[in-house]
């Protein structure tokens, strides 16, 4: 494709205005990668919790530590955002929400509900 060498190129991330669906999409990826990274830890905890009563109590202790509570908030957000954004993508596959206004308002709803879920988990673990 031919284009001018003087075309304006804006790669300053602070100048690019991301519409809500773009924010939703990149957070869908970020949340997915976060959960994949957490997966080995989760399997390790499951392994230990199923060994004997002492190990179970140990896992319970670890999970109530401050770092674990913060991880719960982060992963709670990741799961909520990922699932809700995923449902929205499935609706898009069915040709729903294809107009700009519903596409944007549903993206706003998902982004805000993800944040709300994080706050709910925060309230739960405090």
């Amino acid at each position, binding site marked *: 494709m031919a284009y001018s060498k003087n075309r304006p190129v804006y790669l300053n991330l602070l100048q690019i205005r991301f519409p809500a669906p773009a924010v939703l999409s990149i957070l869908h*990826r970020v949340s*997915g*990668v976060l*959960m*994949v990274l957490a*997966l*080995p830890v989760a*399997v390790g905890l*499951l*392994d230990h*919790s*199923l060994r*004997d*009563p002492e190990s*179970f*109590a140990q896992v319970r202790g670890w999970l109530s530590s401050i770092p674990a509570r913060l991880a719960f908030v982060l992963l709670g957000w990741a*799961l909520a955002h990922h*699932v809700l954004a*995923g*449902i929205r993508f*499935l609706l898009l*596959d069915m040709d729903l929400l294809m107009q700009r206004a519903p596409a944007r308002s549903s993206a706003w709803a998902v982004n805000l509900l993800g944040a709300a879920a994080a706050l709910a988990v925060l309230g739960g673990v405090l």
Partner: protein
Amino acid sequence: MTRPFQGLRAWLLQRVTAVYLALFLLYVLGRIWISPPVDFGAWRAWVAQPMVSAMLALSFVMLLGHAWVGVRDVLLDYVPNLRLRVALLTLVAVSLIYLGIWFGSILVRTLGS
């Protein structure tokens, strides 16, 4: 990558596993809501039920498939260097398979106890 429908298969796998995992999540949240595992005995007894074990095994396979397609998409998009990309994809694949074997061995051990 000369096979036809290569991308379509990944696309379909991602969606089938996504719907399954969403339903599984609903089940797990409902189960925890109704009766959270109170102690070690209840926790192990729940996992050791053959139906629960089978469902967990199926769910973990679905999860690994979903994770694989997702991480594969991310690496294909952001790692243009072919050697590095293949190395990372291999690392991810081996890690996911390892996690699957680990998870399976936990279930087998719990079933037998």
